[in-house]
């Protein structure tokens, strides 16, 4: 289990309520799904009540290809949250998915110094506990 550092402070987890409950519920089922407007077809992330493009309230949780590319990242050398002190250095990464939306996540198989912009990646799922599964990413097998 990677979710607790040696400091014993548990990492913060998402609240599984409302639209975040939907998103992380799909992840628990090992599916990466983003909202897609049923009327204009626009993909979106993070989840929203309405489509900012066309004003529609109708959406589906549509399955993502799970593939994307590294858009940017930071390497945290000194944690500012106590739960991450033992994880340093670690790299929060922004992934641009094939659908166009961007997701903030972490790599599972790539040290921070090996990251590159446009590196092809694919989603993997990491169970934190029986309720929460986080979407993370690894290099796409070429």
């Amino acid at each position, binding site marked *: 289990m990677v979710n607790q550092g040696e400091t014993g402070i548990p990492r913060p987890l998402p609240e599984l309520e409302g639209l975040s409950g939907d998103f992380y519920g799909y992840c628990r089922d090992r599916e990466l799904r983003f909202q897609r407007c049923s009327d204009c077809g626009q993909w979106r992330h993070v989840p929203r009540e309405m489509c900012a493009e066309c004003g529609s309230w109708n959406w589906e949780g549509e399955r993502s290809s799970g593939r994307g590319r590294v858009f940017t990242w930071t390497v945290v050398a*000194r944690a500012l949250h106590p739960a991450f002190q033992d994880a340093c250095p670690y790299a929060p990464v922004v992934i641009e998915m094939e659908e166009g939306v961007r997701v903030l996540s972490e790599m599972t198989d790539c040290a921070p110094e090996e990251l590159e912009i446009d590196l092809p990646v694919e989603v993997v799922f990491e169970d934190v506990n029986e309720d929460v599964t986080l979407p993370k990413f690894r290099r796409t097998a070429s």
Partner: protein
Amino acid sequence: MTDEACIVGIGETAYVRKPGSGLSLLGLQLQAAVRAIEDAGLTGRQIDGIMPFPNLGHAESFAANLGCENLRFQSIVWMGGAAPVASLRVAAAAVRQGLADHVLIPGGWNGYSGARARQTVAEDVSSLPGGAIARDYYLPFGFSAPPQWYSVMARRHMHEFGTRAEQLGCIAVAMRKHAQLNPNAVMKARPMSIEDYLASPMLADPYRFFDCCLETDGAAAVVVTTPERARDLGKEPVFIMSAAAGQPCPADEITNRKDIFQTGLSLAAPEAFGRAGISPGDVDFAQIYDCFTFEVLQQLEEAGFCKRGEGGAFVEGGRIELGGELPVNTHGGLLSEAHVLGLNHIVEAVRQLRGDAGERQVAEAEVGVVTGWGDFGDGSIAILRRA
């Protein structure tokens, strides 16, 4: 062009780290407020509008201590570090509309001796406009604090435009140079070279330790009124030619903007320059909200002092230092004077336009710009001129 309002009073506390201010959060801000009110030639009774900084105080508490018997206007702009300059705009509108005669804008904190500045949002993001989003989509991955949020933009800028660490260093070094001329700067007598900058440890790569603002105790305040009232106060006012604020889209989430470099200032700056009837080339100095070095570069671009992508070259060669084409943060800024939430930037702009900046005075300063930056890139700008 019509001036929108005036700043008639400025006040500051001492800016310190060890052993701390020795004052409460409210007491510290009141000390700055009293000085600003006195500087304006007013009394607490004449302050009838108060605009506190988000989460740092209530207008009622200020009024009860200052004896504001006629408090009839209060408002808080929920834009983090962009709030003080955005408050100038709201205060200007308020005095013009007659909602208040004299509006006090205070701000400050014990960011060193109290809860450290770095902790304000790192462990509890709920006070942010995008707090629930950060909680559910950022914090589980350790993307928990401002230097991390903003450094992903800095890296992308480096990728797209070739911006280099040495150029960010030029900003840190310029602020530190200016602080050597400021007796109230926490970093006075602690000069820094570009080598010192490059040798400082990484915090959130590409941000090094010296890319980051200070953690300090201190408060500042300003008083806003109409040009008509200012005339009766006996002190040369500083005129607010225009002030504007804006939000990026979406403002509550930093990774999914169509244009990753768009900030609130991208909207606010053209509005402010348009209303003032001047262009960035007419400006004698700029006090740019410098929570981190790259945010200075980004705001210089988005405000139109240079084109997007050219900020790295712009800050080189002493251009943003005193004596350069556009002196930036002549007091040392949040990086080297103190982190007073950008209130200290407004105070310094007024001091420059009064000709009271001593050793660091910009010669013949007539027009100055001050900006604010907050939360996930909210922006504000005021264009000020001397009497």
